[in-house]
């Protein structure tokens, strides 16, 4: 059932460590825990003129979380804030079955409900960061 969960695409995406690291002077930072396994991601955003000019994440997590964090960096970095706001809902819809090219390599996760939180965690951190940004006005 989860046979393809560790296929080469996911492993490669995790190993790419796209966006791994910290920013020197982030506009906003959010930290998000998966309390059940102790995984933790810290997301730094640099925001300028309504766009995410830079993004970095420090991720302690399983391969799925790492792959997902790499995807996060790919899709959010350089894009505008409005689009980034959609990503949390998009990954959620994706794991529940909605087609979405951007997350295609994560398709095997759909069958492993216990791992859904692993792939949504980075996007939750992004959402938290953006919510924080908005609160500051």
């Amino acid at each position, binding site marked *: *059932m*989860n046979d393809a969960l560790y296929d080469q695409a996911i492993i490669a995406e995790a190993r790419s460590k796209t966006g791994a690291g910290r920013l020197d002077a982030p506009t906003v930072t959010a930290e998000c825990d998966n*309390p*059940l*396994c102790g995984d933790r991601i810290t997301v730094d955003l640099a925001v300028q003129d309504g766009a995410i000019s830079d993004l970095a994440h420090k991720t302690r997590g399983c391969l799925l979380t790492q792959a997902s964090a790499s995807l996060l960096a790919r899709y959010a970095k350089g894009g505008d804030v409005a689009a980034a706001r959609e990503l949390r809902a998009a990954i959620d819809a994706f794991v529940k079955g909605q087609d979405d090219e951007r997350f295609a390599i994560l398709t095997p996760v759909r069958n*492993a*409900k*216990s*791992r859904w939180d692993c792939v949504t965690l980075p996007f939750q951190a992004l959402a938290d960061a953006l919510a924080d940004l908005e609160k500051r006005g």
Partner: protein
Amino acid sequence: MNPIRQDFPAFDRLDRPLHFLDNAATSQICRPALEALVRFETDDRSNVKRGVYARAERASVAFDDARKAAMEFLNAPSPEEIVFTSGATLGLNTAAHILQDRLKPGDVILVSLLEHHSNLVPWQLAAERRGASLRAIPVTDGGRLDLERLDELADRVKIVAVTHASNVTGAITDVARLRAFCDATGALLVLDGAQRAAHGPLDVQALGCDLYAFSGHKCFGPTGIGVLWGRYDLLDSAPPFLGGGEMIRRVSIERSTFAPPPHRYEAGTPPIGGAIALGAALAWSMAQDWDRLGAQERELAGRMLDGLASLPGCRIYGDTGTQQRIGVVSFELEDVHAHDVCQLLDSDHGVMLRGGHHCAQPLMERFDTVATVRASLAPYNDGADVDALLNGLEAVRRKLA
């Protein structure tokens, strides 16, 4: 024979008639529930939450689906408002815990003389902890809440906790009237649904209650499982009740932080098999035609009430009409002890009844008796059960009275 019996393993192979009329104590389990339980134990047995292997994944999905089934059965807005408990009693204790911090010394919890002990003692314990007290809605001669008296009872009432249907007289509570009272007074409304849940799906939003509890074993599920539904903001407003695994966020020796509802109130490994089986039982219930089953129940109840009324020396406790009631009927035979009635009806007539105070001592006192005989109906009962009861009572009367 009532064809619905095919859904109940109790009727599969019998060497003697099973006129089971003790459904208010516990119903028989329906086949989908027993099958779901055996399937879990055989094919999926593993702990839920965070097992990543496929067996655990199947168990977790089945457990989550059971929560959704309970949500649908109650028409609750969200699965996060469904707390699995070991039964109505733990549900009501949890409800009392959740609400007790709202009580100040001198405040009042409004209960009724109809209540089952499980909807009295938890409130007594909470009241004692907070310096509050209980006040009881009186009961009419017809065995119903005397809601005419409600307004004179309003002073300092912060919580109203009453049964949705009586396990002794079968009276169904006029919840709308209580809802209006709570709107006027600001009190919170807790319903004990232990009896009502056996008579088809519910709508807690339409009822307008704040917390609702029931047991699986009375509505065709297994023993050891129940549901407490609560409005999310209420569930989220209280500290944990039981402590342990699964209900925490972060634990150190000195202190802990806790998970959001419903997990905050589900400490430790839950009754997994029980929840999955209850989900199957509720799905079975939701698939039934309750218009037809309700009509069948009223017809049988009417036949029973008429028969009892024409039995010399038989006193019926509560209403003798068939409206606004469930098929639960209490009575006494003059000069024959309730347990003698029950024993003889079983041994000589294959009819199973309950005798006693039915965990409702204040109501027994209200009726100035100590024990009644109770017959209670489920969808698998039929005319033959009622006839066996009435013929049996006639025979007992002749033998003992």
